[in-house]
């Protein structure tokens, strides 16, 4: 049939769906007309009425069959047979509501959890970045000073390289001062990413030249929030960190790079004469592959260029960027969340497997119970294919119903999962159940239906006609069926064990974290950030005076017991890095590989306020001012690492770019600055504290953004707004953060492990529930098949307790096999979870024992009911049943 014919036939058939009754009537009329005319013709030939009619009918043929044949022309015969099978299946399912409910629930849980996870995974991991040809964008890992960026841009044949560093800056001049994240970017960044400004222009070559770099490009959101989407914004000026900058353009909505909070971009200052040009610098580079270049080639080129550019440094830099690599930008963006999502996806896959095993064993049991029905069908002439088709249709119908219920469940749980798993690390792009997820659920439901339907259907369709019909009701299930069901149960128990062990380990982790000693006591401490902007700190004495005043007023405030200042607070996510040289550990001339420390600038009273013990020497005092002898306090771990077995007091430390040495006057207890687990970035070797007036930050200036800490005495509900007012009152140009408690910082820092734990625990609970359901279903079913046998046992004198023990023992044996397999699998799979664990080994015997106990208990509960029922069997009725 040609395509036009096919198409018009399809249209015709669809239209016919609505007018079948009329078509039937027309067909009837048409055929009657024919028969009447033929009868008349025979009548004219001289036949009697009745004979004429008979002859006409004979000549016409089997009208019934012909009408059927006509009908086939208007309908979709194969499709409608399917619909009929589905109707039969639905009727059969309605007749056993318990089986149907359990099955659909199992599937709904399995499929629902999978769709929710898949939506997250596809929304986060598989979603392409919002740039044209995003797959041609790569991240160049490593450390690059500005000079290296320029050298790479000039030399690379295969890539267009751009750089972008996120920094915080004060936006002033339009009402209250505001702290914003801005990107310091090379002129070609927008072009490399392939996004043009929505208004005005981006940056051009030469915009980075000192004196000509007073420019800014706004993000769409800042333009709307701060400038009321003023269409004449281009050409106006605004003040960022005290520097007037002219707005040259506005980027389109949704464009935020390098971080999702970036609100504006300023050109990267390129001044070969400046010290910073080749100095220590952290600048993430991004590059677009030129046409015809693949990532492997780009990587090769980068390795070659790193060696070449290393020779351009004004000092020898033989060990610069030894591991620089070109990796897909997409991978870099999802680097942090990827392992978590993959572990959860694997967990949720196991839940689905359990659900399928559950359903398969239930279907198998059901098929065995229906052997007689199948035998009757077969003896009435249904072929094996026909029976197989009907059984498969039934399981596919179950799969589709389960899929629909699962979709509902996924939709209900997605919001929660999104909130729990994506906090902070995600830019808030909506994650929804999209077309891909719908296709996924459809495929999953059908696959489940076919998969879990096939084995039982094959088993059931192999009907032993004579055997089934002869034995009244099955007194014992076939051996193969029993073994298959036992395997299903063992399998799902094993999977549930793996998940439960994982959940147990994560629970232990979270508990360990909440019990962890971070090295400081948060107590009732409030923290508020004050950001006067870098320009307020020139000369640096201005900032020293400003913060002195703030600290004094805070201490005088009612309800404040202690107050202190710090450039960074433990666990709040900041990393104030400082490259230094430690006495006795001479630096190589290449300062890109200098020792990196946490470098905190603090006021006197900081260690007391946070209850950080001072182990040796003295704390900072009001006498440690700019002109006095430069001093530092190091952490105990730092002292041990660099001066083992020596007295750290009196040792000296030098900031990499400075000449003067600072003397260690004290040793403070170790503090978990980065995470409660004690995790520290690999390249950071310790911690050093400086008195604020003497301090210096990575930008070689005095830190301008300080956090005021206030330990409260008693309840003072208005203290938070008062503190905020204090900070803001210093100057109209000071931007002030929200007031937070140190406790909340601590809580926030465990939110990731907590969400992972809850999600995993939820999956494990689903798995246990499903396994229990499956065990219960199979045990009850097998029992119902053995009523006769139990009747015999009771009749010849077995005690009821013996029968109870028999049933319970058998189901425990079923579970035990799965338990052993599951524990072994959990040991093998533990290493995939180990990076998420803290304070507990992936083979923690306590957790394993607990899970084993929990599982046996669950199995016992599942077997209790059927066991009691078996013990109550009335032998007389059981034996008479057939």
């Amino acid at each position, binding site marked *: 049939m040609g395509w036009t014919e096919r198409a018009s036939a399809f249209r015709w058939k669809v239209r016919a769906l609505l007018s079948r009754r009329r078509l039937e009537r027309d067909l009837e009329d048409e*055929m009657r007309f024919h028969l009447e005319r033929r009868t008349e013709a025979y009548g004219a030939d001289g036949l009697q009425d009745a004979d004429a009619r008979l002859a006409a009918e004979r000549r*016409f043929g089997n009208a019934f069959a012909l009408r059927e044949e006509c009908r086939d022309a208007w309908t979709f015969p194969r499709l409608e047979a399917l619909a009929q099978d589905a109707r039969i299946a639905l009727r059969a399912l309605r007749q056993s509501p318990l089986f149907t409910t359990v099955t659909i629930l199992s599937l709904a849980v399995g499929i629902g959890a999978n769709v929710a996870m898949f939506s997250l995974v596809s929304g986060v991991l598989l979603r392409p970045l919002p740039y044209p040809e995003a797959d041609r964008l790569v991240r160049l890992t490593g450390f690059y000073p500005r000079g290296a960026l320029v050298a790479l841009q000039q030399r690379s044949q295969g890539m267009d390289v751009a750089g972008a560093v996120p920094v915080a800056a004060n936006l002033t001049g339009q009402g209250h001062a505001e702290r914003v994240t801005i990107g310091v970017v090379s002129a070609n960044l927008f072009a490399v990413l392939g996004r043009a400004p929505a208004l005005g222009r981006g940056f051009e070559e030469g915009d980075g030249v000192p004196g000509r770099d007073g420019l800014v490009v706004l993000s769409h959101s800042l333009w709307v929030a701060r400038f009321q989407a003023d269409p004449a914004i281009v050409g106006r000026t605004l003040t960022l960190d005290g520097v007037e900058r002219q707005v040259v353009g506005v980027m389109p909505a949704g464009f935020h790079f390098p971080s999702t909070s970036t609100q504006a971009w300023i050109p990267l200052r390129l001044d070969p004469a400046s010290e910073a040009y080749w100095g220590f610098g952290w600048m993430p580079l991004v590059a677009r592959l030129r046409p015809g270049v693949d990532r492997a080639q780009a990587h090769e080129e980068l390795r070659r260029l790193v060696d070449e550019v290393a020779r351009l440094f004004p000092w020898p830099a033989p060990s610069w960027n030894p591991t620089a690599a070109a990796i897909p930008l997409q991978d870099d963006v999802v680097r942090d969340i990827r392992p978590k999502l993959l572990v959860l996806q694997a967990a949720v896959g196991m839940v689905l497997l359990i659900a399928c095993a559950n359903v398969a064993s239930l279907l198998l049991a059901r098929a065995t119970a229906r052997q007689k029905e199948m035998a009757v069908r077969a003896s009435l002439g249904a072929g094996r294919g026909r029976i197989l088709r009907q059984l498969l249709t039934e399981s596919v119908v179950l799969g589709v119903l389960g899929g629909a219920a699962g979709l509902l469940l996924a939709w209900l749980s997605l919001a929660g999962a999104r909130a729990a798993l994506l906090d902070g690390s995600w830019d808030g792009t909506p994650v929804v159940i999209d077309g891909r997820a719908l296709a996924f659920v459809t495929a999953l439901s059908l696959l489940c239906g076919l998969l879990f339907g096939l084995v039982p259907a094959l088993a059931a369709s192999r009907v032993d006609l004579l055997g089934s019909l002869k034995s009244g009701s099955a007194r014992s299930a076939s051996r193969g069926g029993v073994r298959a069901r036992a395997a299903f149960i063992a399998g799902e128990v094993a999977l549930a064990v793996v998940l439960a062990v994982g959940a147990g380990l994560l629970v232990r982790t979270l508990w360990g974290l909440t019990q962890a000693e971070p090295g400081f006591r948060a107590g009732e401490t409030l923290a508020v950030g004050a950001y006067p902007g870098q320009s307020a700190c020139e000369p640096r004495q201005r900032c020293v005076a400003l913060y002195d005043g703030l600290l004094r007023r805070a201490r005088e405030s009612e309800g404040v017991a202690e107050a202190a200042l710090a450039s960074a607070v433990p666990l709040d996510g900041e990393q104030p890095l400082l490259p230094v040289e430690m006495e006795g550990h001479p630096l190589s001339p290449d300062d890109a590989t200098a020792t990196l420390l946490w470098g905190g600038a603090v006021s006197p009273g900081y260690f007391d306020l946070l209850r950080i013990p001072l182990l040796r020497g003295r704390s900072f005092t009001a006498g440690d001012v700019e002109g006095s002898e430069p001093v530092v306090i190091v952490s105990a771990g730092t002292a041990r690492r660099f001066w083992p077995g020596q007295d750290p007091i009196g040792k000296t430390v030098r900031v990499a770019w400075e000449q003067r040495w600072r003397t260690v006057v004290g040793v403070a207890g170790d503090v978990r600055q980065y995470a409660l687990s004690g995790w520290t970035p690999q390249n950071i070797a310790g911690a050093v504290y400086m008195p604020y007036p003497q301090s210096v930050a990575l930008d070689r200036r005095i830190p301008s953004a300080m956090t005021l800490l206030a330990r409260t005495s008693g309840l003072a509900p208005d203290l938070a707004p008062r503190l905020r007012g204090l900070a803001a009152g210093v100057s109209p140009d000071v931007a002030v953060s929200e007031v937070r408690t140190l406790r909340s910082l601590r809580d926030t820092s465990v939110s990731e492990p907590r969400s992972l734990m809850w999600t995993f625990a939820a999956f494990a609970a689903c798995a246990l529930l499903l396994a229990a359901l499956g065990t219960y279903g199979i045990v009850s079913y097998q029992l119902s098949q053995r009523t006769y046998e139990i009747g015999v046992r009771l009749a010849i004198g077995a005690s009821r307790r013996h029968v109870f023990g028999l049933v319970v023992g058998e189901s425990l044996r079923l579970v035990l096999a799965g338990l052993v397999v599951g524990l072994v699998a959990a040991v093998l799979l533990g290493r995939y979870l180990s990076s998420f664990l803290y304070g507990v080994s992936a083979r923690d015997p306590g957790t394993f024992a607990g899970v084993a106990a929990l599982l046996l208990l669950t199995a016992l509960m599942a077997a209790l009911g059927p066991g009691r029922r078996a013990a109550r069997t009335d032998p007389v009725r059981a034996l008479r049943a057939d």
Partner: protein
Amino acid sequence: MFKPLGRDAQGELMPGTLDMLVLKTVSRAPLHGYAIAESIQRISEDALRVEEGALYPALHRLEVKGLLAASWGTSENNRRAKFYRLTAQGRKQLEQEAGYWARMVAGVARVMETA
């Protein structure tokens, strides 16, 4: 799609052939089912006598495929009857099949003459 004219093992007319004959018959004027049956039998001098009812599934198939269009009208003896006529699509199909048919007959004839 098209099957050569002939009879199968039971001496029945092959289905594809019937389609072509129907198309040819209604190509001159719209006709109802009975008239089509009569016409085919008259012209073929009863050589193609078939189960008459078999005509109807063929008519319906052709209508569904868009080769025929049907409408209810009044028959020559004033009764309601369903008339079939050829669509543009049907005419194209008929031409194609007629061409194929002619070539095949010619081929068979040549074989019969030379053999």
